[in-house]
């Protein structure tokens, strides 16, 4: 089985979010970047397929050279090859179509993307990709088994889960549940050394079609301060929630 894992390179979850150039660009100053958490769960599941079922695992990112340390980290975790499409990821359609080009020529059986990236939270790259490839698609995937060309996937739905049976080629939008938090791997020294020798292929983008134009950013209004209620006066809390907040 040939697996391609889509890797989004995102600001660490604790990053300060600021903007520069008239609020049109995210301020990367002092920000450290990580593998998008949803993608890391997917990559870790891919490693399981590699170790238990002999799958090969490639990782792909659409981005400029600054994303290479994130791809190297994926190689250190155990991916076989990394591919970087050398372009600014301008919108979901552009990213999906670039990945689709690579996916078609690479004949992948399983493409693992994340439910959403934690920077722009679009959550649509994986669906567009599946549509462009004519592949089966399972979103918010919290469990995946593959047997031959048959896949069994668990999908999170509002208020529960459903089990789906489908076939390869398959695209999933994954998240925690594909593996547990405790299964995530921190690259060891040997992994890091080996990653340096593994291929990181840079390919140029195909076409430049986009569907949206990003405009300026703004930040939410600062919040008013908290109203404290004394622990011995819970009646007041009920009263405030009823009369002031009007939520009960």
């Amino acid at each position, binding site marked *: 089985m040939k697996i391609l894992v889509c890797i989004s390179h995102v600001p660490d*979850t604790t990053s300060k979010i600021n903007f520069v150039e008239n609020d049109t660009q995210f301020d990367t100053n002092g920000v450290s970047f990580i593998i998008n958490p949803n993608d890391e769960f997917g990559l870790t599941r891919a490693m399981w397929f590699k170790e238990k079922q002999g799958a090969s695992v490639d990782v792909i990112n659409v981005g400029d050279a600054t994303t290479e340390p994130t791809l190297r980290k994926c190689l250190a975790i155990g991916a076989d090859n990394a591919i970087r499409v050398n372009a600014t990821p301008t919108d979901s359609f552009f990213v999906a179509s670039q990945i689709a080009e690579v996916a078609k020529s690479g004949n992948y059986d399983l493409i693992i993307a994340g439910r959403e990236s934690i920077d722009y939270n679009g959550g649509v790259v994986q669906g567009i990709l599946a549509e462009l490839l004519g592949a089966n698609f399972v979103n918010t995937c919290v469990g995946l088994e593959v047997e031959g060309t048959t896949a069994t996937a668990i999908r999170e739905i*509002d208020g529960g889960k459903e089990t789906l049976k489908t076939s390869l080629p398959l695209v999933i939008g994954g998240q925690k549940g594909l593996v547990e938090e405790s299964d995530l791997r921190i690259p060891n020294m040997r992994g890091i050394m080996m990653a340096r020798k593994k291929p990181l292929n840079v390919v140029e983008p195909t076409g430049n079609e986009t569907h*949206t134009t990003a*405009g300026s950013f703004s930040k939410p209004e600062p919040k008013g301060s908290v109203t404290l209620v004394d622990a011995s006066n819970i009646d007041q809390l009920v009263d405030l929630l009823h009369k002031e907040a009007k939520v*009960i």
Partner: protein
Amino acid sequence: MSVLLYAETENGIFKKAAFEVASYAKGVADALGTNVVAVSVNANDASELGKYGVQKVLNISNESLNSFKAKTYTTIITEAAKQENSDVVILSSSANSKYISGLLAGQLKAAIASNVVKLPVSTSPLTVERTAFTNKAFQQTVLNTDIKIISVSSNAYGIIENEVTAEVVDFSVSPADDSIEITNIDKATDKVSIADAEVVVSGGRGLKGPENWNLIEDLADVLGAATACSKPVSDMGWRPHDEHVGQTGKPVASNLYIAIGISGAIQHLAGINASKVKVVINTDPEAPFFKAADYGVVGDAFEVVPELIEKLKAFKASNA
């Protein structure tokens, strides 16, 4: 020209999200000077959408479509958009609508903006404001294609009545070749889901162990609320994963979010910040949650929560 919305049903009944999306679609249609059309599957009373300004409902009646299938439903929306010459398609942020959204954008070759929080800031070119960085910022996005898709954040626009008479039209499409088979659905029917809940009661590590979760459940019971938890609580197996909320868990956009024994780490807050009113109960007055909350009680959950349950019961009894 028209604005099309997908109105979700569950067992024939419209979900709350359907009314919110209808209200939003009406706002967009007014701004564009066009009509609102809805598409629904097996709605018992499709005309109900008229209350929110929907002039026409294309309703499919087909038993075999009772369970949601992403590809088939995507095709239904695509066909409806073509038939109605829609320029804008509006979706909700439910799990099923999010599942459809990317497929639909691919099928219609449409620009899409997710997590949109208010009416378009401009109609020409169509420009919307959406959240980014998990509720830590907003970004304006211009949608450049002929057909455009807007996915609306839950509970951001609200439900707005705008009574008209909705014409209900029977609709049918030939089923898509859906090679995904549903083999099992595991859904608690007696519980409100986090996505649909008006009130969410959430517990953190401060509750010390799973044996104390009756506090959370009892409080949720009185409020008709969904239960949720912080990430470490689900990682330690105190609660199931589907209760984990936050940046890497489920998003919460309820009217009321009550956090008990949760410190308010940035990753937690990001995911629940879209909630309208936030209450924190925590022993530590320095806990970061107090900066994000509207109301706070500095106190021990094991004393405050039983007290709150009693007071709420009394409040309910006197307001019944």
